[in-house]
């Protein structure tokens, strides 16, 4: 039963990634693209966690933790760049 639920969750988050990709290509504003990238990172973390359950190892948690941190920092960096034209003042 878990494997079926796992497949369902994989499909959901994968479809979510596609939606984000669509928003990145269509735009129309930079902030939309940043938002879509941020959401993409979150979906990606979910996929990593699900993959860890599928394979039955806890190795992927370090990876998802790192992806979460990098994703947050890059979102903030993008926004700051657009807001101030500069990341570190």
């Amino acid at each position, binding site marked *: 039963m878990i494997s079926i639920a796992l497949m369902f969750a994989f499909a*959901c988050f994968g479809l979510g990634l596609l*939606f984000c990709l669509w928003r990145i290509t269509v735009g129309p504003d930079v902030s939309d693209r940043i938002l879509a990238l941020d959401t993409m990172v979150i979906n990606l973390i979910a996929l990593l966690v699900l993959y860890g359950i599928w394979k039955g190892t806890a190795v992927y948690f370090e990876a998802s*933790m790192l992806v979460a941190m990098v994703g947050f920092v890059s979102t903030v960096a993008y926004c700051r760049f657009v807001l101030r034209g500069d990341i570190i003042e």
Partner: protein
Amino acid sequence: MPAIMEILISAFLILGGVFGLVGSFGLVKLRDTMQRLHGPTKATTLGIGCALIASMLYFFSTGGAVSFHELLITLFLFLTAPIAANFIAKTYIIRNIDRSELPASSREYGWSVYDDSPALRREE
């Protein structure tokens, strides 16, 4: 693995998948950027929270050891999602919205994107 655990894990996985999908679907369906901000900040974050709880339960029932890793990731995401959303909102506002379209701040100073803070004003 006991049946109840299996049902619980599957339920959390499906719930997580549905919330994650709804959050991303909001990105496609809603019409302006501020509306779109609502989907990913809430639904997707809760979706991934559900997936992480499922993973915690799974490793608890197979390995027997309690793992806190997932809690850390969940906590991190719940703390950072509002900050990222706030930054994106500001980015959108400064590029697309004129100050006359926003309601007044009802205080002496205006909104921070348009107005200088009191400390900056004193310097001048």
